[in-house]
């Protein structure tokens, strides 16, 4: 993605969704009374930025959810916004690749060594593989759940303020009255001095039908999506600020 310049972020954006977003200077240069005004400017999508077209099969809620999740990650991972924390992905990759390597090793061992001699080794390998696969499944069901994005942000405003946001998303099924929808859930935490003092906490959840973001050919209206996400994130960041 082309790095966004500060000028572009601060230019009057077409959607001033909060109504109080002047072309704000970047938050690092001064100490604004509420740090979130700077963020609101950043949360507005830049209309002039060139984007690759996202086109999905609009009959598949899975494809649409993935497209929305990817757009969300791209939007929130911009240099001035959140930095994505990849812990869940890394754990899944580590457990997965470890189990694959163990399976490969066991297969190789069983192939080289005659059957009767290889039995204890192959037992060990198979049991280890089963254990790792179980661990993976339990982790992704209980600990990861619906989470699609975990982000961290550090700003300096008299002291180092750390913000952490966790975003979950689900597809709500369609009914005779409503099309399938994208349900976004946010959990926000702001703290200072290394997480010891809590400055603010927020929760939000909102749902929109997929028809709001995808047209009849399956092309995604990324501007609209980013505006909506920006509004929800801005709201949860402002909500219980000090």
């Amino acid at each position, binding site marked *: 993605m082309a790095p966004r310049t500060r000028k572009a972020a601060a230019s009057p954006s077409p959607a001033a969704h909060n109504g109080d977003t002047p072309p704000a200077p970047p938050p690092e240069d001064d100490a604004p009374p509420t740090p979130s005004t700077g963020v609101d400017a950043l949360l507005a999508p830049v209309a002039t930025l060139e984007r690759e077209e996202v086109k999905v099969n609009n009959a598949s809620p899975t494809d649409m959810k993935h497209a929305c999740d990817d757009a969300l990650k791209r939007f929130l991972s911009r240099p001035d916004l959140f930095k994505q924390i990849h812990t869940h992905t*890394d754990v899944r990759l580590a457990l*997965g690749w470890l189990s694959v390597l163990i399976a490969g090793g066991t297969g190789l061992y069983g192939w080289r060594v005659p059957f009767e001699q290889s039995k204890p080794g*192959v037992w060990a390998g198979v049991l280890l593989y089963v254990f790792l696969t179980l661990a993976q499944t339990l982790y992704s069901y209980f600990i990861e759940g619906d989470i699609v994005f975990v982000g961290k942000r550090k700003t300096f405003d008299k002291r180092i303020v750390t913000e952490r946001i966790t975003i979950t998303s689900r597809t709500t099924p369609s009914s005779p009255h409503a099309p399938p929808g994208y349900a976004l859930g946010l959990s926000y935490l702001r703290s200072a001095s290394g997480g010891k003092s809590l400055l603010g906490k927020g929760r939000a959840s909102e749902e929109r039908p997929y028809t709001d973001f995808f047209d009849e050919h399956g092309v995604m209206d990324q501007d609209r999506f980013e505006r909506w996400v920006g509004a929800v994130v801005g709201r949860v960041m402002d909500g219980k600020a000090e």
Partner: protein
Amino acid sequence: MFADELKTLRRLGVRHVLLQILNFVSVLASGLMIWKGLGLITNTESPIVVVLSGSMEPAFYRGDLLFLTNPPNQRYQTGDITVYKIPGADIPIVHRVLETHDLVNKDKDLVAASPLAQKQLLLTKGDNNHIDDIELYQGLEWLERKHIVGKVRGFLPYVGYVTIAMNDFPQLKYALLGGLGLLALVQRE
């Protein structure tokens, strides 16, 4: 042909590509582990085999799938259908046990209680053959337990033709694997 998918992959980064490759490789790994686990439970190195010749007709025809077990504490009896492998021969053979003998240990006065304390010697013959298998034993007079892969417990007709086709036309095997890989790499969850 896959321009859209390649664009998506490039956009999504290293971790995503690793995840997609993991999807494919873990399907192969779980297949391998299920095979090995099955082999351990049935105590045989090849729990599922395909019949290649017609020497057991009319019981088994070429292309049938056979399910084997190798119970370590049971004697093999006349009438059991066994799969055995002669050291030095490439492929295992499916034939029926014609005779069994126990090699009694003449040094001791006692006979052990365990059913397999004495070594078992076996002679086999295919149902559809006129003569027994002595010529196939490559010099051995009898088969011993260590040559036996397993005993047939059940079978599925015709299903084995898929394996025969993939062995006779390796391109089919690679095409199938390649297709599966491509599918796993571009599909998500």
